[in-house]
């Protein structure tokens, strides 16, 4: 069931000013049905015209709230950053398929790059709830532009990579994965920029891997066919409906 409803902003704090924000929204129905990896389509103002797809970062089903972690890029996310506490916000969701959550034999590895870390917090939490151990590998460009790490530390060990080496290992998440023993891992999940996802496909034979993709969206509902990504069989699938989560082996990043 997809709802369109007006949530109420109950918090909207910068983690890094003008860059990364965490917004908490009271919206019981979406909170009730949301699964990890699903996203919202948010109307951020009169313009931009289109809603903006934003992942669900955290859900509190008891208090009926959802949180989003977002990066200010253009007008839409800038508008988001200007919402005040108590203001109503026009949401559609929960959308998309979400990550597979079940009890696995071995550990789960959650790999995020930049704002791609957003859906991994709720995922980690749900994986733990059903009895898994979770570990995180998170990549940022630098110490100053890294964020939300303390949230992930609540759930399990966190390894950090930064491009400039200012914290953790120097390089991308690949620099950590190179030396990582994947035999310990039942299931891996990845979300981040396309180069990272492309890199992750190189480990798809070593571990059962799910990737959350991004694509430019018109409707978020499966109607407009704009958000497609290429599958290995040459066909296209809709990121908003069959995705955003796909098995790594299904997808193709070839031109």
């Amino acid at each position: 069931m997809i709802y369109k409803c007006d949530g109420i902003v109950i918090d909207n704090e910068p983690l890094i000013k003008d860059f990364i924000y965490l917004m908490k929204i009271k919206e019981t129905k979406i909170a009730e049905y949301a699964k990890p990896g699903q996203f919202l389509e948010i109307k951020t103002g009169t313009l931009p015209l289109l809603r903006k797809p934003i992942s669900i970062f955290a859900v509190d089903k008891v208090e009926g709230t959802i949180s989003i972690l977002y990066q200010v890029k253009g007008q839409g996310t800038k508008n988001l950053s200007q919402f005040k506490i108590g203001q109503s916000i026009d949401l559609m969701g929960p959308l998309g398929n979400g990550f597979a959550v079940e009890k696995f034999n071995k550990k789960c590895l959650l790999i995020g790059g930049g704002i791609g870390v957003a859906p991994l917090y709720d995922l980690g939490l749900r994986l733990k709830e059903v009895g898994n151990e979770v570990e995180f590998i998170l990549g940022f460009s630098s110490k100053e532009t890294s964020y939300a790490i303390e949230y992930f530390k609540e759930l399990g060990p966190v390894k950090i990579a930064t491009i400039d080496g200012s914290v953790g290992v120097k390089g991308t998440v690949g620099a950590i994965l190179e030396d990582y023993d994947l035999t310990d891992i039942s299931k891996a999940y990845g979300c981040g920029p396309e180069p990272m996802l492309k890199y992750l496909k190189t480990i798809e034979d070593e571990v059962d891997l799910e990737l959350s993709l991004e694509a430019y969206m018109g409707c978020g509902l499966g109607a407009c066919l704009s958000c497609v990504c290429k599958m290995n069989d040459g066909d296209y699938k809709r990121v908003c409906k069959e995705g955003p989560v796909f098995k790594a082996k299904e997808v193709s990043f070839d031109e």
Partner: protein
Amino acid sequence: MSKLECQLGKLLLKNPVTVASGTFGSGKEFKDFYDLSLLGGIMVKGTTPEKRVGNKPQRLVETSGGVINSIGLANGGIDDFIFNILPEAKTYGTEIIVNISGGCIEEYGIMAHKLDLEGVGAVEVNISCPNVKEGGITFGTDPEMAYDVTKIVKANTSKPVIMKLSPNVTNIAIMAKAVESGGADIISMINTLIGMSIDVEKRKPIINNVIGGYSGPPIKPVALRMVYEVYKAVNIPIIGMGGIMNTTDALEFLMAGASAISVGTGNFVDPYIPINIIKGLEEYVEKNGLLSYKEIIGAVHR
């Protein structure tokens, strides 16, 4: 009789509010929001003779307050539509209007023939796609070709035939007259304007296909003008569309000469727009003491 009842030639809609092809899937995608039987009709996503995967992404971008798309008529083909989509769609309790595109005149005939089925309310003929045989001239810009397409579709179906006009022409009235004389029962208009958007960082077009169809609020003034011109030129009813977002927009189209309207890009912004417009029209009719909304069709011409 409801004051919103809408008679388009032999096509009867419970109200004049429909949803535009390509923006509403087959209806299924919007079922969670409201009872689809509230709608006057659904123009389903365009179908073609064979399955098409569509264009390489990026297929859509917001620009200048509107949207450019180049989906490339991605669909499972007409047979897939008939066997896998229509059976469910016809249970929605609203008119299912099937939007068709062919690569040559004969294909339009074949598709119309296949769609002469129970559950199909009308056929909407998209003539904005290029004609492969005639070297890429689109059916929608050449009045003779538009006439021929209309003729062949009419000859192959007992359903009302809606010819959908492209706005990318010098003289829309000539196109309208051509499809009228070909036997069209209804005209729907406008399809998208052709537009482009550039990523100045990458120095590349944003849409992978370079150009695409421009829709949404910015095209409304052009759409209204064309509805106005076509209303003067022909005697068949018009389904007006192009940037309709609310009841006032819908009223503008009705007053310009449309007998019904369609919400397109608006469905992406707020799926409830068609429902809000139905309510808005009901209120308008009451407030102004009209016996039927029809009283305002073409009002600016009087």
